[in-house]
Every structure is written in structure tokens, then in C-alpha cells.
């Protein structure tokens, strides 16, 4: 299946999750274990995506300007900057490090 196909499958399943909460009896999703699994997966996936985007190229770990973006974003978040400012800080750090000759 091409990329369009997977995008549409993702859209249908995302709506499916949302709708299931409204249509299924509360007991199915209402137990604390389901909430913990959903919450833990959210944290785990976002942590994983952060690491992959910061350090992975293909199938190897590569340390480059993206690591500077990670540090800059962490500092911005620590200073309670809004989301967009954090993203711009990350981009600026990576761009400046590349200008300075980092890979």
C-alpha cells in the first residue's frame, strides 16, 4: 500500500479510538489498567520519538547538530517557553551548529 493508503488507515483508526470511548460501555475502557496502559504508551512513544529524531539515522546512532536542538529545547521548556518557541529554539540550535561546521 502506498503512503496515501496508510495515511487514510491512520485517520480511520484515530477516529475509531475516539468514537469507541463514546459508544462502548464505560466499563470496557473505564478500568484504571486501560488508562495506565494508554498513559504509559503515550509517554513511551513520545520518549522514543524524541530519541529517534535526535540520534537515529537509518539503523545507527549518529550524534550531530540534532543533539544541540535537544538541549536547546530542554532549556526552553525548563524556562516555560510556549510550544512554538521551543520548536524555533530547536531549529535555531541545529541550524547554527551546522553553520559552525557540525554535521
Amino acid at each position, binding site marked *: 500500500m502506498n503512503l496515501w493508503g496508510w495515511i487514510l488507515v491512520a485517520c480511520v483508526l*484515530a477516529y475509531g479510538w475516539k*468514537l469507541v470511548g*463514546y459508544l462502548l460501555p464505560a466499563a470496557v*475502557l473505564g478500568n484504571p489498567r486501560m488508562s495506565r496502559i494508554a498513559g504509559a504508551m503515550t509517554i513511551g512513544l513520545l*520518549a522514543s520519538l524524541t530519541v529517534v529524531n535526535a540520534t537515529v539515522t537509518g539503523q545507527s546512532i549518529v550524534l550531530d547538530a540534532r543533539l544541540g536542538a535537544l538541549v536547546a529545547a530542554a532549556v526552553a521548556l525548563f524556562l516555560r517557553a510556549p510550544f512554538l518557541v521551543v520548536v524555533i529554539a530547536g531549529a535555531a540550535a541545529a541550524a547554527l551548529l551546522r553553520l559552525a561546521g557540525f554535521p
Partner: protein
Amino acid sequence: MGLEPAKENRQTVRLRDSPAVRVGVSISVATGLYGISFGALSVTSGLDFWQTMALSLLLFSGGSQFAFIGVVGGGGSGVAAMSAATLLGMRNGIYGMQLNALLRPRGWRRFASAQVTIDESAATSTGQTDPDEQRRGFWAAGIGIYVLWNVFTAVGALAGSGLGDPRQWGLDGAAVAAFLALLWPRLKGREPAAIAVVCAVATVLAVPWVPPGVPILVAAVVAAVIGAVSHGRSNEGLEPDVDPYPESNETFRGGTA
């Protein structure tokens, strides 16, 4: 002053006076704006304009959308991108259940409610105590974010497609920052931080052995197992990226707002 407001203005005045609507509008602006970064990163990850818009119009869940383009941008397959986005979407089912119990939408409203059920609309609604305010907060945040998120996704996608080499502009660094910013507000307490560290380590260990994109799914499985056996807060990880009630979470916990 002194004039009776015209009849058609009453609704507007009342909505403006609603604390939940005010919160909903401000969260809509804050969240909608970062649709720019999603749009720009999506087109530089290899999706075209309409694929990017399809994610914002139809999938409409920030974390899942960033996950999809993050996997594709890292060379992962479509099925890996779809899987990561879908696993991240599970929490919306939990929000749907909570909101269904709270707002009891009926008929077509139930299907419309589902589409705008995301971190921020759920948090805006559940942060109110009055049932009418809960309803107004949900719709104000849900519809407001839906509209602005899509408008700013389009702006970002159009701007991003004219950028040339994304690395030169540090857009790969922008993606790193976006994921950390999505993760950050969920790291309240020791257990969420431990889950994040364990999953990050699992990812790094899996990278050399499996195709691109799959390490993220390995981390999801590890997280699900931890969640299934843990006895922590049952709402950990279920927080919005932009907190609609920042004061009440820091200084006035237990207040009535």
C-alpha cells in the same frame, strides 16, 4: 450603556462571560498556532500538501500526527508510521469515555464530539465543575483548535514547501524539539520519568536490529507492559500539551475553578 442588548447579542454576551469559553479560546490560539510547525515539518518529511492536510483534517490529534511524520521522516515504512500514530491515539478513547459520561452527547453530536476529542478539549472540559461550563469548554476548545490547527497547518505546509534543504534550516532539530515539548508536560512525578527513560533505552537498543520506525513500536510495547503492571496514578501521561488551567495545577490545587 443603559441600552438593553439586542436579542441576538445575548448569546454572544453570555458566551463571552463563560469562563470555560474564555479558556477554550485561549487554548485554541496557543495550540492552533503550533500547527505551523506540524505543517512545515510534514512537507519536509516527505508528505505532500494534501497528505499533510488529510492528517490535520481527518486524524486531528497532534501527537499522532507528529508521530506519523516523525516515522516517515526517519525512513520508516507507512505501516510503522500508521502503527505509531494509532497506538498514540489510544488515550483519545479514554478521553471519549470520560467526556461521554460527563456531557452525554446524543445523535449526530456524539460523532462530532468524537472528532474533536483530544488532550486539550478533554482537559478544558474536565477542568470545569458546572455541567454547562463543561459542555461549553469542550466545544469551544474542540472547534476552536480544529479550525485554527487546520488553518495553521496549511500556512506551515505552504511555507515549508518553499524552504529547500530542511537540514540547513534546522528543521530536523525542530522535530526533536516538538517531540520533547509533547513529552515534557507528561513527565510529572517519578514513574512517568522512569517510563520515558526505559522506553528511550529500549529504542536505542532496538535501533541496529530492526527496520527504521520499528524501534518506536518496541518502545510502545515496553510502555504498555509497564502500564499493565503499574499501580501509579491512572491518569499519568494523559495530560494536554498546553495546560488550560496552569494556575490551578500549581498554586490553587483544590480550588473551585
